[in-house]
């Protein structure tokens, strides 16, 4: 299922969790609970040893997954289980694991698992020729990032190869919940809107329903990661983690839906 199907008359909620945390089946259960609680699009992280754009929360969960031996094949399996629920399922991945797996093989396996496509935080379109070619072959979404520091020319050339939505990183900084969402975001979103009809998602920093509503007032998708991951990370046990996750997702979903 491509992500386009999720966009309609209202803003959508995109929820991120890493594969393999707290365990491979535990992550699948958590993501499914998050879907039931109201996320419209799922973003599954592939744990990676050197996550340069992730903050401490996502890094801690990813490292724990790696320490328990999570593999790229587990990610594919997780995508398959989640996509079977019918929710559009994207993978967020750093580039080296894809390279190592084989770009074409990765795309093939992802497509066969029912995955929608990739968000690639350390792969800019300039370096993405191989990925663009196989993504098109397999009808996969390509979500690239734009930033407040991006020039108009770069925003234009980046959105030109995006498919699904455009990921606007709302602050200059790494992932992590913030007390306040940034004022750079509305400006960036309107700059993107000038050059594309694709939906624009805003990520980095949203942690509650109120902030989600604020972002939903100017963006098409509200992307939440660290705050959701923290529910699992801080919980006493898995069941409590999922309960916290469901409560937060419901709050965020209500915020997005206004």
């Amino acid at each position, binding site marked *: 299922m491509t992500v386009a199907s999720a966009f309609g008359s209202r803003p959508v909620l995109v929820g991120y969790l890493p594969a393999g945390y707290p365990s491979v089946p535990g992550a699948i259960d958590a993501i499914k609970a998050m879907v039931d609680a109201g996320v419209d699009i799922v973003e599954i992280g592939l744990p990676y040893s050197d996550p*340069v754009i992730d903050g401490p929360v996502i890094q801690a969960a990813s490292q724990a997954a790696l320490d328990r031996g999570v*593999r790229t094949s587990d990610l594919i399996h997780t995508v398959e289980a989640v996509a079977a629920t019918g929710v559009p399922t994207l993978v967020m991945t750093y580039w080296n694991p894809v390279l190592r797996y084989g770009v074409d093989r990765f795309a093939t396996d992802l497509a066969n698992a029912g995955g929608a496509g990739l968000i690639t935080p350390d792969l800019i379109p300039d*370096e993405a020729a191989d990925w663009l070619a196989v993504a098109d072959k397999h009808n996969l979404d390509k979500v*690239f990032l734009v930033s407040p*520091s991006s020039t108009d020319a*770069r925003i234009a050339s980046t959105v030109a190869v995006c498919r699904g939505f455009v990921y606007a990183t709302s602050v200059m*900084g790494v992932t992590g919940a913030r007390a306040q969402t940034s004022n750079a975001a509305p400006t960036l979103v309107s700059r993107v809107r000038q050059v594309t009809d694709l939906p624009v998602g805003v990520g980095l920093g949203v942690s509650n329903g109120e902030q989600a509503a604020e972002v939903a007032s100017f963006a098409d998708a509200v992307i939440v990661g660290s705050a959701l991951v923290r529910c699992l990370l801080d919980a006493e046990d898995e069941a409590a983690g999922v309960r916290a996750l469901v409560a937060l997702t419901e709050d965020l979903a209500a915020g997005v839906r206004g």
Partner: protein
Amino acid sequence: MTTTEGPDTRGYFGVYGGRFVPEALIAALDELDVEYRKALSDKEFVGELERMGRDYAGLPSLLYEARRLSEKAGARILLKREDLNHTGAHKVRNVLGQALLTKRMGKRRVIAETGAGQHGVATATAAAYLDLECTVYMGEEDTRRQALNVARMRMLGAEVVSVKSGSRTLKDAMNEAFRDWVASVDYTHYVVGSVGGPHPFPAMVRDFVRGIGVEARAQSLELLDRLPDAVCACVGGGSNALGIFHAFIPDADVRLFGFEAGGDGVETGRHAAAITAGGAGVLHGARTYLLQDEDGQTIESHSISAGLDYPAVGPEHAWLSDTGRATYEPVTDAEAMQAFRLLCRTEGIIPAIESAHGLAGALRIAPRLATELGREPIVLVNLSGRGDKDMETAAKWFGLLEEKS
């Protein structure tokens, strides 16, 4: 592209290099690319950098013929004495260049990552000298191994951040520095410590350190009336190696040898030999050789030398290796420490353990070259740094400290 050219406009040396970083950094990298090349063609900038090198850092460094060592080696060994530079290593060339560039770009703060602490000390030094704020990221494991360098950086006014993520070593410090940079790029320049990272860092750092080879080449001609048969250096990220290699790349008769950290031996898996035993992939912003598992996760490196304890190598080295212009071999901890002691005992020079890897490699290839050339070979070795920082490690290795009762 020939090996003397490069990188291309996208920062590629052959298939290595590029920019695998978040979009948020692209504007800063573009600015840096334009500004550093403008600076290098600006007489005033180059003049000021030369003045700082000469009056402050003690450049050009000496080219020294190690006679007693040569007798043992069966080769004429020339040492490029980067250990005599201010702050004790080749690193000062790179940081003075980048710090001056930071000023020129109107930024007020520098950040750096450091393993051994050598690059951190050099950056803190340049920051103090040029009145810049300075934050240095260092893996927690390294802050323990190199406590004295942490104190030096703090003495110089830098903030040292101990990084507790991942393997708590250099690669994690580099991740953390990138994170800082993404958030502070408006007023901060990231002084990358070696010829790695996203374009234009590999080219820029090389351009700032290539004076090592330019000087050594001219000094060889002066001293010997000819060029050496081989040039040797250790390879961590690869800056001292590329620094001394680069001016010799067009000299087809001069062989270039890079020596990677073989740790306990490449066959044990405990090493830092990215070219010898790694594969092509992407780490820290560039496509290059790195140590990785089947899933593309970075494998932790191991070396007795904190400065070589890094799982990747600069992309230009990957290219020089693939094209065969330079040869890369691993040197074990034990071999390096043997060379370390030999240099101490024959010449009264205590080298950095990093540099001892280059020296050990030179001693290894000397008989090979002699056979091949049918005469005593002339081997130039980059003595990239001095060993003060490594005395505790060396004293432990050789059992020179009194047992505490």
